[in-house]
């Protein structure tokens, strides 16, 4: 098989049931995290303990799927040991690759486990090939996940200039900021993706019904106010409505989902190694639906790239589970910027 035909589908596994439906519905890889802040979805009730991780790896491997482990937050001086132990544990569990963001941790992994496959997390903020090649030269990374800020033409430029496989986000919640370089959440709440593995943490969220509407607050800061007929989504800081020069609007980003189904043939043609689905915090039902649609789409695009067309039924299914019930091509499509 030529490398260009080997596009992998990488699906989120927030827990064992999600992992199983992802594998059963055609994920080539699943990615997961441990039950602590070593990963960027450190939410209560989510992620894997030792027993479920072991069962997850067994289940996936028995069906020919790979398991990737996200250790993509930044260890601090006093908590370094936890991240180091997590790398050790990944090796012990037989994880197929670890997804890392911190350069220090990457060095630890490369030095101690030369056979462990390393992926550069999107939280590593590598938006150009010089950055990606840095990690390749120093630690031998084999894949990099690109932040959701490049246009497709810029992605192609990266692919042409690096030996590292490139993984792109294809679907799910959309970070409008460069991942790994956003401290908005810690500015408001004290906890950020980099330091705590959370953005706009649930414990800082307050909903309040007021005479002027339903209000969402993050650590007391008003993020939005909803009228009677409006759907209220999870109050992610950058997706609130704010006032700039007396105009109230989604000043940073609308509550939308990224959906790049229509770009699949281009992505395959330029040699993208993998498409990542966001959403470890979402339900197994979401994972099942999204995996199913993307499996069909990827198979169809690989089989007949020339005649590939987005099936309206796929869009309908994805729209049912999309955040904000809206889709965007994000930065891959220039006018978004």
């Amino acid at each position, binding site marked *: 098989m030529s490398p260009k035909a080997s596009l992998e589908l990488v699906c989120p596994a927030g827990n064992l049931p999600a992992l199983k439906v992802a594998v059963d519905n055609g994920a080539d890889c699943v990615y997961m995290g441990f039950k602590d802040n070593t990963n960027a979805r450190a939410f209560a009730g989510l992620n894997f303990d030792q027993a479920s991780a072991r069962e997850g790896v067994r289940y996936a491997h028995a069906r020919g799927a790979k398991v990737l482990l996200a250790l993509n937050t*930044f*260890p*601090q*001086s006093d908590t*370094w040991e936890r991240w180091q132990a997590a790398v050790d544990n990944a090796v012990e569990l037989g994880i197929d690759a670890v997804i890392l*963001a*911190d*350069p*220090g*941790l990457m*060095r630890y992994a490369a030095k101690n486990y030369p056979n462990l496959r390393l992926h550069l997390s999107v939280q*590593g*903020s*590598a*938006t*150009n*090939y*010089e*950055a990606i*090649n*840095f*990690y390749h030269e120093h630690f031998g990374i084999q894949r990099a996940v690109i932040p959701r*800020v*490049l246009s497709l033409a*810029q992605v192609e*430029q990266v692919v042409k200039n690096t030996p590292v496989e490139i993984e792109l986000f294809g679907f799910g919640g959309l970070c*409008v*900021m*460069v991942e*790994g*370089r*956003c*401290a*908005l959440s*810690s*500015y*408001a709440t*004290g906890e950020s993706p*980099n*330091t705590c593995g959370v953005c706009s943490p649930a414990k800082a969220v307050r909903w309040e019904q007021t005479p002027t509407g339903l209000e969402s607050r993050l650590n007391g*800061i*008003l*993020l*939005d*106010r909803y009228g009677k007929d409006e759907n209220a989504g999870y109050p992610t800081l950058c997706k609130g*409505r*704010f*006032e*700039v*020069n007396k*105009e*109230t609007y989604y*000043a*940073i*980003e609308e509550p939308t989902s990224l959906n790049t189904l229509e770009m699949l043939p281009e992505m395959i043609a330029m040699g993208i190694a993998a498409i990542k689905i966001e959403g470890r915090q979402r339900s197994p039902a979401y994972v099942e639906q999204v995996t199913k649609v993307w499996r069909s789409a990827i198979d169809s695009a690989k089989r007949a790239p020339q005649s590939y067309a987005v099936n309206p039924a796929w869009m309908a299914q994805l729209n049912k589970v999309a955040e904000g019930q809206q889709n965007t091509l994000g*930065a891959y499509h*220039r*006018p*978004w*910027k």
Partner: protein
Amino acid sequence: MKLALGPILYYWERETTFSFYDEIAASPVDIVYLGETVCSRRHTLRTEDWIEVAEKLTAAGKEVVLSSQALIESESDLKTLRRIAGNGNFSVEANDMGAVHLLSATKLPFVAGPHINTYNPQTLALLAELGANRWVMPVEMSRDALVHMQAARPVGMETEVFAYGRLPLAFSARCFTARHHNLPKDDCQFRCMDYVNGLTLKTREGQPFLALNGTQTQSASVYNLIGELDAMRETGVDVVRISPQAFFTAKILRLFREVMDNRLPAQTANQQMAKLMPDQACDGYWHGRPGIEQSYLQAASAEDAA
């Protein structure tokens, strides 16, 4: 401790920028970081202009460092980065790992800027081996975390703290200033030039929250650690960074200098600064709190009350 002026984060008229640095040349600052770090579309000063400013400041006795852009996306961004990295004269502040890659190959010392995620001693040691001789603490890092970093600091590594200015909190491919004006980024008409200290974003109940600065999002509040200079000295901080604002930057520098030299009490300086800042102060990050919080003034007024 040395006093540094960070790169201008806003987009100012060419002449404004030149006269700003004329004033800085005469100010009590030791180190000046120069260059466009936010958006490659901004072009009133080209790399050669920055180098000209650098030469003038060097002649005035300042240490000059050229800062690289934080978000490097295109081949032309990389071209500019290569010119800066290979300038052969001035030290460079790396603001992404692509810059670290190029600078480590030059075997010349460089500064690991505030946009490099240096959160632990292992990463700091790696940067030292690659040639960094100074690092700027990430803005969200607390004093307590810094103490741990300092305890394990590699020999010869200087520590710099972002101590004054609207906090650079996030970068995006999207231009929020252009978005505010319903303009596409490619035809932004350089509207960010109208907002010399950023464009304030408020909550729907009028609380100033963030400041839009093109593709960068800043805090609306002004991070101000003038009350923490003693603590910084105790922690072994070598360099204190002031981030430029459109007005009163030289005055801010002077106040920091006077407090650092024990010629002015921090509280007095703090009171004087209230009139010089584009918005209210914050210092939460330093205290391990949400960045937006402010504790120094509250503590000061509590003392006044007692």
